[in-house]
């Protein structure tokens, strides 16, 4: 028997595999196909204060080993998420979920986190700081240590649940941003969000995405994600949730060796609806292959 249980801020997960926000809806889409209670947890679609349709279509473009999306945080807004989506989620998923919160101002983050903090279904609040800061020139909160720390502090002041800051990889120095969040009170770090990418349609000579650019993810970005998880693990003491291109049980082990306590799976869910199920079922075999009996033994193992 192998042990796949890991613990994030006091919450024990049966396994480290967590579908990433925006690629698993509110869970019930997948619950039609398999019992999603086998998951460690899942991070639901990014939630904002107001309902959002998101960006114009086309919002999807294919790349080698991945895709670009510019969904633009389509969601029904925090009130409806709480009144309609959470009850539906509760029917199909009986473990603590991760609430992914986005915002375009510090106030918006605070507003949403305060609301979601009251929901006992929510185990962890994952604060996505990749969105543009409308009050400060549109650069994302996640691109400066100060802005990321500011969001962290503000959110921590209104929540009692563990707060994980989800970082953008489109930065010069990811470690300093993670460190700033830790110092501001973050309970953990989630990374990476999508790399900014772009494709051009040769037939039209126009950007393939209506919004010009979008977020690039999928197996192509895995080496960047592993590198950043490794760097952040060196920089902070709080737990790291690693993601970016994970699509196999081997990838889960590699992320954990880099320093992740748990691992999220994003784009892989879209093209392989049973990706998380397959990964979880394959984990014990792959652990045995590499002589691992307890996943906790390998967290950060590549730093030794």
């Amino acid at each position: 028997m192998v042990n796949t249980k890991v613990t994030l801020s006091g919450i024990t997960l049966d396994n480290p595999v967590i579908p990433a926000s925006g690629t698993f809806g509110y869970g019930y889409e997948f619950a039609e196909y398999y019992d999603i209670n086998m998951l460690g947890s899942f991070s639901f679609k990014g939630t904002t204060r107001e309902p959002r349709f998101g960006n114009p279509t086309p919002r999807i473009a294919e790349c080698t080993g991945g895709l670009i999306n510019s969904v633009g945080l389509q969601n029904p807004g925090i009130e409806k998420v709480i009144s309609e989506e959470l009850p539906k989620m509760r029917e199909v998923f009986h473990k603590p979920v991760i609430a992914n919160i986005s915002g375009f101002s510090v106030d918006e983050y605070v507003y949403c986190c305060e609301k979601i903090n009251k929901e006992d279904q929510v185990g962890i609040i994952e604060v996505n700081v990749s969105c543009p800061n409308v009050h400060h020139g549109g650069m994302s909160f996640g691109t400066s240590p100060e802005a990321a720390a500011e969001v962290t502090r503000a959110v921590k002041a209104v929540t009692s649940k563990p707060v994980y800051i989800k970082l953008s990889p489109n930065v010069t120095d990811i470690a300093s941003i993670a460190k700033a969040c830790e110092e501001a009170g973050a309970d953990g770090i989630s990374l990476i969000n999508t790399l900014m990418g772009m494709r051009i349609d040769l037939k039209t000579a126009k950007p393939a995405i209506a919004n010009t650019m979008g977020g690039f993810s999928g197996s192509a970005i895995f080496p960047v994600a592993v590198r950043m998880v490794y760097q952040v693990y060196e920089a902070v003491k709080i737990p790291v949730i690693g993601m970016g291109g994970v699509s196999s049980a081997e990838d889960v082990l590699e992320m954990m060796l880099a320093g992740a306590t748990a691992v999220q799976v994003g784009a892989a869910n879209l093209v392989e609806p049973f990706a998380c199920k397959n990964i979880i079922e394959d984990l014990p075999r792959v652990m045995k292959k590499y002589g691992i009996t307890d996943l906790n033994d390998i967290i950060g193992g590549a730093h030794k």
Partner: protein
Amino acid sequence: MKQSLFTIRKNESLTSTVFRMVLEGETSAVTGAGQFLNIKLDGLFLRRPLSICDYDENTITILYKVVGKGTEVMSEMAPSVSLDILTGLGNGYDTTKSGDRPLLIGGGVGVPPMYRLAKNLINEGKKPIVILGFNTKDEAFYVEEFESLGVEVIVATADGTLGTKGFVTDIVKSLSNYTYFYTCGPEPMLKALSDCTTTSGQLSFEERMGCGFGACMGCSCETKYGNKRICKDGPVLEKEEIIW
């Protein structure tokens, strides 16, 4: 939605760019005309969505046009190759609203779903009129297949090399005794049909898809009834709800 392996039984060209592929496998997830499937191809990250043209207990027929990398690879596949496919995707057409004499209008690669739809309507005792639009005779396909269903088939080509010269809308405008319409084809055609039809109807849309089964919000559109995902709440929308 179901994920399973299908084996190619036939893969033949209908025109210089349009192919018919017959796939054998588990078809239980397919519930009606107008649904689509989503095919995984080696080396390409996203699956390729294609309408179901016809199906029975163990085969599905698709018609596809070669327009890019994926369809090009498909056109070179030999029988007996197996493919990982998601089936049972999309809402499909609702035949209960058709009335007695529905119009079925297919333009270009919007033709395929009309085939099974025509069959279903005939089975329900209705008398569909099928209108097929192509650019030119050489690009026309499936005209005989529709004719052998025993329905009235009207063909329009932009250059007049087959059937009436002009667009499907010209034909629709000349008809009056239809009870409803169903269509699939390029968006400008859908828009024109929405404008020139005198009845309600259902229109099937295309959008770039991340997943094809409702998970990513990649394919959303705004309708009068709220935001919808083309892949899950569509691809078929009702004329009344569409915001052009």
